[in-house]
């Protein structure tokens, strides 16, 4: 837990988040994210033996909705924020991996 954040981890997280970083970015974020993690690390000083893990910060449960339809957006409105569409579908650069 208290292991220092490495540039390798920063590169991996960036790759998973599809963010391109320069070497200078990697240096900077290794330092900055390391400081954030160090700050959060203070929490480990607390003794949490016997404390239930928190599933949600709000003390509310069972916010449920009846299974009743509500109006959807028109297709035009749905596609309106898209960088590219053919009027029926969202268009994205060709997907190679049919997964």
């Amino acid at each position, binding site marked *: 837990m208290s292991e220092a954040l490495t540039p390798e981890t920063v590169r991996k997280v960036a790759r998973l988040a599809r963010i391109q970083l320069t070497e200078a970015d990697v240096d900077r974020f290794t330092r900055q994210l390391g400081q954030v993690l160090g700050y959060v690390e203070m929490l480990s000083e607390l003794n949490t033996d016997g404390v239930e893990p928190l599933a949600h910060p709000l003390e*509310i*449960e069972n916010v449920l909705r009846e299974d*009743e339809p*509500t109006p*959807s957006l028109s297709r035009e409105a*749905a596609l309106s924020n898209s960088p590219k569409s053919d009027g029926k579908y*969202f*268009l*994205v650069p060709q997907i190679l991996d049919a*997964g």
Partner: protein
Amino acid sequence: MNFTTIIGLEVHVQLNTRTKIFCGCVNKFNPDQPNTQTCPVCLGLPGSLPVINREAIHLGQMTGLALNCTITPFTKWDRKQYFYPDLPKGYQTSQFDLPLCQNGYIETFSHEGEARRVRILRAHLEEDAGKNMHDESGRGRDSQVDLNRAGTPLLEIVSQPDIRSAQEAKAILEELHLLLTYLGVSDCNMQEGSLRCDANVNLHIDTDGCSKVATPIVEVKNLNSFRSIEAAIEYEVKRQLEEFQKTGRKIGDPGVEKETRGWDMERGYTFAQRGKEEAADYRYFPCPDLVPVTTSPERIEEIRRSLPEFPAQRRARYRQEFGLSLYDASVIVNQGAGLARYFETVANLCGDAKQAANWVTQDVQRDLNDRKLTIGEFPISAELLGQLLKRIVVGDLTVKGAREVYAQLLADSDEGQTLLVDWIDAIIEEKSLKVVNDTGLLDAAITSALEDSQKAIDDYKAGKQQALGAVVGKVMKLVKGADAKVVREMLIRKIDG
């Protein structure tokens, strides 16, 4: 080389709620009208907030109880992060460490009644993704994305690796499919993708008689029919065995990771899907937008009491209550709740379950297949067939005569007529099919037929049993509707004197 096949299944079931899992858009298969069933929530627009559909929880818990699972009293929501164009938010809302249902099992039975139990690890709720359509021309055109399906409630059922053959995997999936249709929680239409199956397959190979090694686990995707699950696993077993003999690669070797392969039904092989640059890292974390769901023991009991009869229970009841063989009971129950209800009505009306089972599994089933009809669309209702078979049970009709009435009813319906119960008697009358039990009439006909059949009588007395056939025929011609069996018995009594 001795080896054991190890198979686990992951089944995605679309629940048939009216609306999506986290928004009020309709949950309907509608590929002809792309992107008409979306809203800010299922498009993943900033600032929108999901709210859980009560019915999705209910259907998921019903299924969990039917799979003998424990219903988790406190369940929560987690985000599974990955990028794909059909996933607008960049994460799928799912359940990670506290799934809706846990630790159950499902059983199949062979025709000999032997049970096979496969344990269920978990069943959790999540949202379905949209649908991508790829340009097949190879000219590198853009892919199309339809988000109508995004946000459809899915129950992902994960089995333990307890399955040992392709046939067993198919049988388990068929039983699960049947159970889900009896519960009515899903359309289970595999062509439309409302039931989708992935299989994790590997082999435990006995290399030297005392130690075993495991081949790398392969997840086979796109198994969208019962036939394809069987064929894909059979292919994969062969492929892994050959691969192992060539390379000796096994779990634990450096660089060996779980592999994902697709199944090509037309060409009959599995193919490697482009490997991810590194092992999947979904970085699950609790979803701050959704609060936990709790379920009291009272509520769980309430759902349990409301469950319909399961296929396994129904097979057992048909054997006890109706005296059917396991085979007959399975044939009827495995065709779905509609045919099973039809059978029960016919059996109760005619009072002879065996007779009802014969007709339903042979005549009715044949005509449904020929006409590509469901039992709900079949023109001869259960009431009509029940009344017809009752005529056999009370001795008014022979089975052969009943077949004629049945055929006539179908023919009338083909001409667009609506079938009514009194038509049975009209057809019996018209075709003189009523069994003649008037022994005086039969006696006279037999005496007359015997008068000019001396040769047949001599042959019969000389030991040629079949010589009587011609005489029976003569009597039948004289008395329409006579029961051939009765005529034959009377003839023999008369000749043997």
